[in-house]
């Protein structure tokens, strides 16, 4: 793991926490309102991306291969953008 166990596992935990918060937030939305449906789609996509990244770290670590920097950085940037967009709704 080139990124180092320390960093990778903290990102892992952060992702899980962030995902959990996002799922809790989903339950607070008004399901009929059009804007809430947009927010729902954005936060659900955030959860799915988090799941994919957690799964990636788990899988690659299990295979004894390197956790590559690019997917993690790309995922984090996408998550930040989505979070920013999601806050607008």
């Amino acid at each position, binding site marked *: 793991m080139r990124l180092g166990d320390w960093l990778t596992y903290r990102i892992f935990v952060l992702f899980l926490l962030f995902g959990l918060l996002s799922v809790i937030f989903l339950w607070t939305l008004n399901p009929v309102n059009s804007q809430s449906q947009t927010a729902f789609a954005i936060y659900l996509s955030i959860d*799915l991306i988090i799941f994919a990244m957690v799964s990636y770290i788990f899988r690659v670590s299990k295979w004894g291969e390197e956790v590559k920097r690019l997917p993690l950085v790309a995922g984090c940037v996408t998550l930040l953008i989505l979070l920013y967009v999601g806050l607008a709704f």
Partner: protein
Amino acid sequence: MSESEGNGKTTGRVEKLVGWFDSRLGLSHELLRPAPRYSINPFYWLGALAVVAFVIQGISGSIMLLYYVPSPTTAYSSTLYIFQSVSYGQFLETVHLYTAYAMIMLAFMHMMRGFFVSVHKKPRELMWITGMAMGFVTLGFGFTGYLLPWTVVSYSATKVGTAMIGALPPPISSFIDFLLVGTGGDAGQLLRFFDLHVVVLPAVLLVLLAVKMYMLETHGVSEPVTGGTPDPKKKGRLLPIFPDVSFYLLELAALFGAAMLLISVLFPLTLPAAYSPAAAAQSVPQPDWYFLWIYQIIKISAFEQAGLSAALTFVALIFILLTILPFIDRGETRRIAKRPWYVTIGLVFIAEVIVLTIWGHQTPGQVIPDTQGILVLGGTALAVGIISFNAYRVFAGRRTNQAPTPPPPSPRSEEGQMHSASFWTSAIFVTVLGLGAFSIGGLINSVVVMATWGVSELGLVSLAFSLIALTVAVLGACFLLYRLDLGRGRIKRRVKMFEVGWNQK
């Protein structure tokens, strides 16, 4: 009885129960064979992603089924009710539509990838045919599902489709007519489409999927086409389906789901007007985008005159050829580098489908003159064919692992030879740069002009010139790559045309 004896008895009972289920269901045996490491690549899982799209559609469709009423008087109002009043109804409808589009797109990409890497060859011929049948069922999903909202757009498009079916030879047309239309008028037709969409087609697709999975288990994942057997310790090592490959698939599915959600946010669905005879009379019938390329072929003047059946025979021929491809392309090699004809045909097919789809979108309801048809379709085929063959000649030489062939010695002085070579290379570089900029600018310009003002002769001529310029630019790029390799002595297949100024006597 002591506590440990009691625990031992309980464990024994649990083991016995598990053993009973295991002996009946085979739980401890591997359900699916392990996948090789080289298959951990999204291109290997395009078909699996199409299945993921099917599952998402199944879930979203099942929820919508609770509210939808398949009758001409209530179909639109129930769709509108889902859209406006059901919790996350708009979200469900949007996701259902976009995953349907994605499923069709993924099925097409899966087929074309299979075509290029020759997965249809022995012993996977029947897998290919089963996959083609699944593709037809996927198109059937699109066709039958499009009518269900009962909007003016969907009704008109379906009428175009059913009219096309009527032009097929009598035994086929009467069977499909019975299957799709029946004798119950609009109400009967809607009910049949609904039944096909939610019962018959999903059942057929699941059976075909089971058959294909069985054959996949028998033959395994196809080997990479790069040549050579992968190292069993690295790329060729086997990974168990659970949890290794399953997690990879879940990652892909999650990213696919996220992409679908974001697309549905960016392009939210708006429901068109309800169908009424008056509204239908004012609208131009146009099928959904995945049938547009077929519709555009039918609109070409020559086919209009020869009749709908001639056009449909032509389209059917394309599908038949694709289906029986394993019995046409019987060569043993699977390497892309050694199949220039098939790869070029595949590229031309993709380019034609894209061009026809865009063109069809831009010219709703217009009959296409023969000259335009020949210019656009012939020009596209010619441009893609030339680019493909020349790229082939260059890259086939680059990808060889054999010992480099040095360029033959020249009687000219080394300095003079270098001067001439660099003059030609520089000249071609400048031409490529200029033509590349011109062609990209021209392409954008002609597409924007035609999108804004409609298709015109001037726009088409501009498009044709841009395509020619692009072809020359790509040829020039191939030339530059060839020259670079020539300088490094890495050329196997010589292209005399590209050696101008290099080795003149």
